[in-house]
C-alpha cells in the first residue's frame, strides 16, 4: 500500500518537469515536423514555394546549396572527430603514467572548454585570416616568422571544396581536452595488476597498450566518438563567429537554417532542414542510449 503511495508522491515531484520537457522538447519537435510539411504560396502572386508534404524534403535534399552544406558538415565532422580523438588519446597516454605537475597539464589542456564558442571564434577568425605574403596576419604571419611560409593557407576560405577542414582546427583546440579527460579516467580505471602481469610475461610497453589497455578503452572511445560527432552536427556558434552570418563557403545545415529563417524568411525550408538534422543526430544518439541502457542493466543484474 505504502509503496504505491510513495510512487505517486515521487511522480508528483517530477510531474512539472515531465510536462515542461513534454511541451518544450516533444510537442515542439512535433510542431516543427508539421511546419516542415506545409504547403506555401506567395501571398501576392500565388506562386507555389513549397508543394507541401514529403516533396518539401526532396526539394531541400535536391538543392545544391543544401548538398554543399551537407558535404561541408561531413568534412568538418571527419576532421573534428579524428583530431580530438588523436590529441585526446595522445595527451592521455602522455599523462596516464603520472608525471610531475600532472594536474597543471590537465587543467591547461581542458582550459579552452571553459571559453564560449563565440569568444573563441572571434579570436580564431583573426588567427585564420586568409591573407598571405605581405597581407599575412594571424597564423599565416606566425608561420612566416617561423620560416614556414609554405604552410600558409587560406584556411576555411581556401578555394577548394575541402576547406571546411580548417574550421575543425578551433573546434579541435576547444574539445581535445575533453576527450583526454575521458581517456585518462579510463586508463585510471584499469588495475595496475594487469600491467604488472603483462610485464612479468615479458610484454613490451607497446604490446601492453595494444593488447591490454586499448581494448578496455573501446567503450570510452565509442562514447567520445558519439559525443564529439553529435556536437559537430550541432555546431553553430563557432562557425557563425568565424565565418560571419550568411557565409556560403562555410555553410552547414545548422547555419543554413538561420539563413533560411531570418534572411530568406522561409520557416518551412528551415523546419525541413532542422528536422533532417534532428534525424541525423537521432540516428547516432538513440542506438547509443540503448547500448548504454543495456550495459547498465547488465551491470545491475
Amino acid at each position, binding site marked *: 500500500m505504502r509503496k504505491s503511495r510513495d*510512487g*505517486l508522491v*515521487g*511522480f508528483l515531484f*517530477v510531474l512539472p*518537469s515531465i510536462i*515542461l*520537457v513534454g511541451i*518544450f*522538447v516533444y510537442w*515542439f519537435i512535433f510542431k*516543427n515536423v508539421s*511546419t516542415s510539411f506545409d504547403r506555401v504560396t506567395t501571398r501576392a502572386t500565388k506562386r507555389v514555394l513549397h508543394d507541401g508534404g514529403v516533396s518539401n524534403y526532396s526539394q531541400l535534399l535536391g538543392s545544391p546549396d543544401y548538398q554543399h552544406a551537407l558535404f561541408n558538415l561531413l568534412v568538418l565532422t571527419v576532421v573534428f572527430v579524428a583530431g580530438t580523438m588523436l*590529441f585526446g588519446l*595522445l*595527451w592521455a597516454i*602522455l*599523462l596516464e*603514467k*603520472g*608525471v610531475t605537475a*600532472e594536474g597543471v597539464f590537465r*587543467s*591547461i*589542456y581542458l*582550459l579552452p572548454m571553459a*571559453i*564560449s564558442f*563565440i*569568444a573563441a571564434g*572571434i*579570436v580564431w577568425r583573426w*588567427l585564420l585570416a586568409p591573407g598571405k605574403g*605581405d597581407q599575412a*596576419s594571424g597564423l599565416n*604571419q*606566425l608561420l612566416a616568422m617561423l620560416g614556414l611560409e609554405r604552410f600558409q593557407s587560406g584556411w576555411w576560405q581556401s578555394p577548394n571544396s575541402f576547406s571546411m577542414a580548417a574550421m575543425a582546427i578551433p573546434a579541435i*583546440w576547444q574539445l581535445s581536452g*575533453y576527450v583526454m579527460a*575521458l581517456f*585518462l*579516467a579510463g586508463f*585510471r*580505471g584499469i*588495475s595496475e595488476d594487469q600491467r604488472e602481469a603483462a610485464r612479468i610475461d615479458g610484454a613490451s610497453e607497446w604490446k601492453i597498450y595494444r593488447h591490454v589497455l586499448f581494448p578496455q578503452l573501446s567503450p570510452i572511445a565509442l562514447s567520445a566518438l558519439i*559525443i564529439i560527432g*553529435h556536437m559537430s552536427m550541432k555546431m553553430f556558434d563557432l562557425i557563425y563567429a568565424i565565418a560571419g552570418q550568411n557565409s556560403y563557403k562555410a555553410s552547414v545545415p*545548422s547555419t543554413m537554417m*538561420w539563413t533560411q529563417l531570418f534572411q530568406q524568411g522561409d520557416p518551412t525550408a528551415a*523546419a525541413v*532542414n*532542422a528536422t533532417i*538534422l*534532428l534525424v541525423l*543526430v537521432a540516428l547516432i*544518439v538513440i542506438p547509443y*542510449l540503448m547500448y*548504454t541502457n543495456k*550495459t547498465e542493466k547488465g551491470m*545491475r543484474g
Partner: protein
Amino acid sequence: MTATTTEPVPVAEVIPKRKTTGRAPGTEGTVAGRTLRYALLLAFVILIFIPLYVLLVTSFKTSGQVNAREAWTLPSLWSVAGWKAAWSALAPPLWRSVVLAVSVAVLSAMLGSLNGFVFAKWRFRGATLVFTLFLFGMFIPYQAILIPLQGMLIQIQSMPGMSWFDGIWKLIIVHVIYGIPICALIFRNYYATAVPTEILEAAKVDGAGTLRTFASIVLPISAPAFVVAMIWQFTSAWNDFLFALFLTNRNNGPVTYVLNELAGGQNPDYPSIMAGVLLASLPTLLVYVILGKYFVGGLMSGSVK
C-alpha cells in the same frame, strides 16, 4: 552531451590519481623517454596558449599598433584604452548575463535535485522510459525546436501585462527547461550511491513521508551535486549564443550576443574586441580555475563507465 550510467558523479576526485607504484611520479622509464614526454607536454601547452596569448597582447595595444608587423609581439606601448572601450560597450550585457547565469544555476539545481531523487530512489511506473526520453532531450539539436519555441515565447509576451517577458527573462526560462535532463542526470547519479536506501527505509519506518525524507535526509547531503549542477548550468547559460541569437536583441541580450556584434563591425578595433572577449570569458574562466574539479565533474557525469 553525456550519457546514462550507474556511476555517481565522481566529485572528490574526478580523474583518479595513478595508483602508487612505489616510484615518485615522473620517474618511470628512461631519461630520454621522460625528456621526450615533457617536451611534448610543453609543446602542446604552447599550442593551447597561442590564442590566449594573442588575446592578451592585443588587448593591451593601441589601435595603431595592431598592424600586421606587430601583431605577434608584445605591445611597444601598453594601453588600457581597449579595455575601457570594451567595458563601456559590454557592461550592461555583462550584468544581464550575470542575472541570467545565476538565476539559471539556482533554479536548475533545485529542479534537478527533485528529479534526480525520484529517478534514483522513488521510481514510479514508467520511470525508466521517462528518464530515457529526458536524456534524448539533452542531445537534440535545438534547431529542431527553435521555430515553435520562438513562436510560443512571442505569444506569451504579447499577452496583456506580459510585455516585460523579453530578453533575459525568456532565456532564463529556456535554459532552465532545456537544462532539466542534464541536471536530473547529475543528481540521479549522485543520489544513487550517496544516499543509502537503508536510511530511506528507516525514515519510512519512522513514519516520515517522502517530502519530509527529502527535506531532512536527502537535501542536507546534496551540496556536492548542487555545486556540479550549478557550475554546469552557469557555464552553459553564460556561454550560450544560439538561443540568445534567436530570442534576444542587442538591447536586451546577454554578453555573447553583444560581443559578437562588437566583433562583427566593418572597421574592427582589435584591442577592444580582444579585451571584450577576455571580459566575456572571465567569469567562466574564474569558475574553472577555482572550482575546476567540479567543472570536470559536470563534463564527465555519465560518459564514463
